C-alpha cells in the first residue's frame, strides 16, 4: 500500500515541476526533427530500411536519448536530501526498498510518457503513406521493447547517482558519464583498428547501438534482454544499499 502512495507522489512531483515539462518539450522537438529527417532520407530514393529503423538509429536519436536520463533522475534523491524532506519521509513507517522502488517507478513512468507521443508519428506515417512498413509488428515491438530495456537500465544508473549526492548537478554528471561510457563501449569497434574478434564480440555484447539496430529490424535476441534486466536489478540493489547507508553516514 505504501508503495502506491509513494509512487503516486513521485509521479505527481514530476508533472508539478517545470523541469519535466521543459524536458518533454525539447525531447519532442528533437524526436520530431529526427522523425522528419528519417522520412526525408527515405524520400530520396529506394531504401532497405523501414521508417522504424530510420528513426531509432540516427545520431539525433542517440544524442537526445543519452541526455534525458540524467535530467529525469537527478532530482530523485538529491532533491530530498537537499531540501531535508528525506527526514519526514524516512521517519514515517516506510521501508527503504519501497522508497527506492517508488522513485524508480516514478522515473520509469515519466520515461514511458515521454515516448508515448512518438507512437503518433508512426500512426500518422502509416495513415498518410498507406505503407505498412512502419506498422509491421516485429520491428515496431522490437524497437519499443529495446527502448524500454535500455531505459530501465539507464534510469537505474541515474537513481544510483542521485542516491549518492545531495547535489543534483553532481548526480547528473555522474549518471551522464556512466551512461555515455556504456554507450560508447559499443562504438569502440569503429574507433579501434586491429580489433581482435574476441574484443569485437565483447563490445557488441555491451553495445546499445547494436542492440537497437537489431531489434528495430525485428530480430529478437535474448542476450540483451538478460543483460539489461540483470544490470537494472543489480544497480537498483546498489541504490538500495547506498540509500540505507545514509543512517550511518550523516
Amino acid at each position: 500500500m505504501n508503495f502506491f502512495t509513494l509512487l503516486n507522489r513521485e509521479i505527481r512531483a514530476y508533472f508539478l515541476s517545470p523541469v519535466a515539462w521543459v524536458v518533454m518539450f525539447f525531447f519532442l522537438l528533437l524526436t520530431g526533427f529526427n522523425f522528419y529527417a528519417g522520412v526525408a532520407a527515405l524520400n530520396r530514393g529506394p531504401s532497405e530500411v523501414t521508417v522504424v529503423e530510420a528513426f531509432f538509429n540516427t545520431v539525433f536519436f542517440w544524442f537526445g536519448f543519452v541526455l534525458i536520463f540524467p535530467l529525469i533522475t537527478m532530482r530523485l534523491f538529491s532533491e530530498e536530501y537537499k531540501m531535508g524532506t528525506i527526514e519526514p519521509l524516512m521517519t514515517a513507517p516506510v521501508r527503504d526498498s519501497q522508497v527506492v522502488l517508488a522513485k524508480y517507478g516514478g522515473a520509469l513512468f515519466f520515461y514511458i510518457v515521454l515516448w508515448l507521443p512518438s507512437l503518433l508519428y508512426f500512426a500518422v506515417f502509416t495513415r498518410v503513406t498507406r505503407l505498412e512498413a512502419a506498422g509491421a509488428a516485429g520491428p515496431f515491438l522490437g524497437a519499443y521493447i529495446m527502448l524500454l530495456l535500455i531505459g530501465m537500465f539507464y534510469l537505474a544508473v541515474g537513481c544510483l547517482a542521485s542516491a549518492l549526492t545531495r547535489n543534483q548537478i553532481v548526480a547528473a554528471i555522474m549518471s551522464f558519464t556512466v551512461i555515455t561510457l556504456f554507450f560508447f563501449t559499443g562504438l569502440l569497434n569503429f574507433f579501434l583498428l586491429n580489433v581482435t574478434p574476441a574484443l569485437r564480440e565483447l563490445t557488441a555484447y555491451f553495445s546499445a547501438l547494436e542492440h537497437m539496430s537489431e531489434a528495430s529490424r525485428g530480430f529478437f535476441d535474448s542476450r540483451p534482454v538478460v543483460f539489461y534486466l540483470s544490470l537494472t536489478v543489480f544497480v537498483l540493489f546498489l541504490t538500495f544499499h547506498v540509500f540505507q547507508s545514509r543512517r550511518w553516514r550523516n
Partner: protein
Amino acid sequence: MIKVEGLTKKYAGITAVNDLNFTVEKGEIVGFLGPNGAGKSTTMRILSCYLSATSGRASVAGFDVASQSREVRSRVGYMPENVALYPEMRVQEYLEYRAALKGVRGRRNRQRVNAVKELCNLRDVDQKLIGALSKGYRQRVGLADALLHDPDLLILDEPTIGLDPNQIRQVRQLIKDLGKRHTILLSTHILSEVEMTCSRVLIIDRGRIAASDTPEALAGRVRTAGGIRAEIRAEPGDLEKALAALPGVRKAEVEAMPDGWYGCVLRTDAEHDPREEVARLAAARGWALRELGREQVNLERVFAEITQSEELR
C-alpha cells in the same frame, strides 16, 4: 515509553551523543534542554529512527529503534527542527499523503486530517501551496503532520523556533493540551518554555545528561545562578563590605556606573532571598536605592552553573 541505555553517536571526528542514559514514562512531558550542539537533535533523530546510533540501545514503547524501526516509527510523531515540506503540494494534499504513508487510510484519513487541521489552526490555508506559506504556518503543518497518526509519543525538536510571540503562546498551549493524551519529548533552549510546558527537564550537555529535575527545582537553581541586582548610591568600599556581610550572600560584586551610582550583583545560596535585608540596610545607612530585583538570567549562565558544579548532578 522511552528507554535509552548507553547511547553513543559519533560523526566523523566528533562525538555528538556520549553514553546517554535516561527513561521517559508514559504520560510525561519531558523537556530536553541544552545549548546548541549539545546532542539534542541527534538523540531525537535516533529515537525517531532517522539516524542509527554508533553504540548503545534505545527503545520506544518496548520496540527497539534499530531492529524494530517500523513499529517505532508508526508509534512516534516526529517534528524535525527544520520542518521540510514539499513546496509544490497543497496543505490538504500533503496532510492526506502523509496520513496515508503512516497507514491512516480511507474514512479515517479524512477524519484525522480534519482533526489536525483544527488543532493546528490550518483551516484557512488548507488549499494554499506549501511553498507560499509563512514560516509560522509551515511549522504548524509540521506539527500537524506529527499528530496525524495519533502517535503514542511525540518528539518535537524546537517546536516554537521561528514563531512570533502569539504563535509561540498558542503552540505551547497546544503542547500542554496534547500532553494530556500523549507522551511528549520536546527540545528547546528557551528556559521559560520548559517551565511552562514540561513536567520534567533533562539537561544535556556535550552529549551527556547533566541534570534531570522538575522545572520548579530548575527554576530555583536558575534564580540562584542569577542572583540579586541592586542600584545604590553610597561609599563604594563600605557598600561592598556591608552587602557581602548580609546572611546568605556568597559574593557581592559592585561596579561603578557612569552617573555616579553603583550597580551591585549579589550571589546567594538557593534558599536565601536577601532583597528585604538589602532594602533595610539601605534605609538604615541612609543610602539612595533606585532598583532592587532578581537579575535576568540567560540560559548560558544556567548551563555554566549546572554543568560546572558536580554537586548538582
